[in-house]
């Protein structure tokens, strides 16, 4: 049984991902820079994951498969970062108190490693889910 790790995901901005998204939302470059989760070293060890490892990120709202990346920041176990994108938004609930902003920066989710043959969630899959 693969390890599971609970994290709080904060969505943040990245200039390279922003640049890629301006050029095209449908490019591999945008996917590679968006379908990412940045984790603390300790969480990477707990998941037995290396950089580039595909992880299933799941919560009550939805799930996506993204690549893991080790954070360059100091220690922040339990805290993960994703760049704002349709991938991170799969995990953001739209059920909020009236007048409140959705929790874009406070997303609870569970991480687990995936089978080798699983692919990073494609933008076309996300589009199909939205239009279903």
């Amino acid at each position, binding site marked *: 049984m693969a390890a599971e790790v609970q994290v709080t995901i904060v969505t943040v*901005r990245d*200039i390279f991902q922003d640049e890629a998204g301006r050029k095209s939302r449908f490019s591999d470059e945008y996917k590679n820079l968006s379908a990412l989760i940045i984790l603390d070293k300790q969480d990477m060890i707990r998941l037995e994951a290396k950089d580039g490892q595909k992880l299933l990120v799941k919560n009550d709202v939805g799930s996506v498969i993204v690549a893991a990346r080790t954070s360059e920041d100091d220690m922040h176990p339990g805290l993960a970062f994703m760049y704002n994108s349709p991938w991170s938004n799969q995990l953001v609930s739209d059920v909020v108190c009236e007048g409140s*902003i959705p929790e874009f920066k406070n997303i609870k989710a569970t991480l687990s490693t995936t089978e080798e043959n699983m692919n990073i969630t494609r933008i076309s899959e996300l589009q199909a889910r939205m239009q279903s």
Partner: protein
Amino acid sequence: MAICTGCSLLCEDIVATYENGALTHVKNLCRKGHGHFQAAFTERTVPMIDGEQVTLDSAIAKAAEILKSAKSPLLYGWSNSTLEAQAAGIKLAEKLGATMDGTSSFCQGILMERILSGKIPSCTLDDVRNYADTSIFWGSDPSSSHPRHLSRFSYYPRGEKRQKSYEEERTCIVVDVRKSATARLCSNYYFRVAPGGDAEFMEAILAVLEGKIPKVGDKKKMIELGSRLKKTKWGAIFPGPGMIYSLQDKMELFERLVAKLNEITTFKVIPMVGHYNMRGFNELMLEKTGFINSVSFKGGAAVHGPEHSAMAAAKTSDAALVIGSDPLSALPFGTAHALARLPLIAIDPRRSLTTDAAKVVIPSAISGLETGGTAVRMDGVKIKFEPIIDTNLLSDEQILTRIMEAI
């Protein structure tokens, strides 16, 4: 000189060489702005109905037909449109009895309301450059989101009263959940807060300013921060989504902190608006309706409330027009899903998740590059711009006017 509409700094010193249908050389654009300019040459939209290419006239006619037959349409976006287009949009909303909302209801709205009503003191970015000796980036990372913020205004330039600038006269402070690119530049005064911990941190600053022992944070560092703030002659705070999302209904606490700082010295606040004309939309809506966003014209008069926010209206509307925005990328899945089920009209220069899901796509000219107009910078300064590339494409304003005429 060209203006960059890539973010709400609206940089005015861009030198672009346009030859044979391409931008061959551009000076002074940051990486983000460069991406914005280059995007003019990829994935442009064409007029479409149900995924089939049609003439512009039929797309406009179809859009008018959808809006006319809808009982409660939503008009959403507006942060990437000129003031002229926004004004045309408000007229259209009045005519249709539609709901009108912009991206600010997901972002800076709750702070912007307080800035525009004067509850929180503000200033221009030029004032910051000329006078500020302390800049606080709170839940914002301008190096990533507004790359030239620090170099043009808030930290590195020389100003009227700040000739020795960052070397001797300016301090920058970062409060954030992560050591961002900006935090690395301000590492002497970087304060890490936990997600949702901003209110607690504000209480701690208020405590040290009142000479009490703070409850959170490294006490020595907090006291040092307190004395830095007290020594400040002219300070500026730049709150980003990090602070706003974390505070939400506790925005009053920030108001109190700013008031307290102003009892001691001068502190101004400029919200880190993302899109180039989000503030313009808020100002124009306030002027025309009395509210900055989330307005319904259903009964004729403008009514404001959270039930008229795009997030709520996506679920109650029966059609939506989205202009210059990609909510299917940027909003929570549930809202994206609700929008995608509606007959959607997307006015956008470029392909997006929203144009892909739209029943009607109307291509528009890119403001700043292909069409001129007026926008409001994040600090409230109005900036007028002229196009630098010739195009046959209609501007947002022209498209909205034509839709209105057809209704």
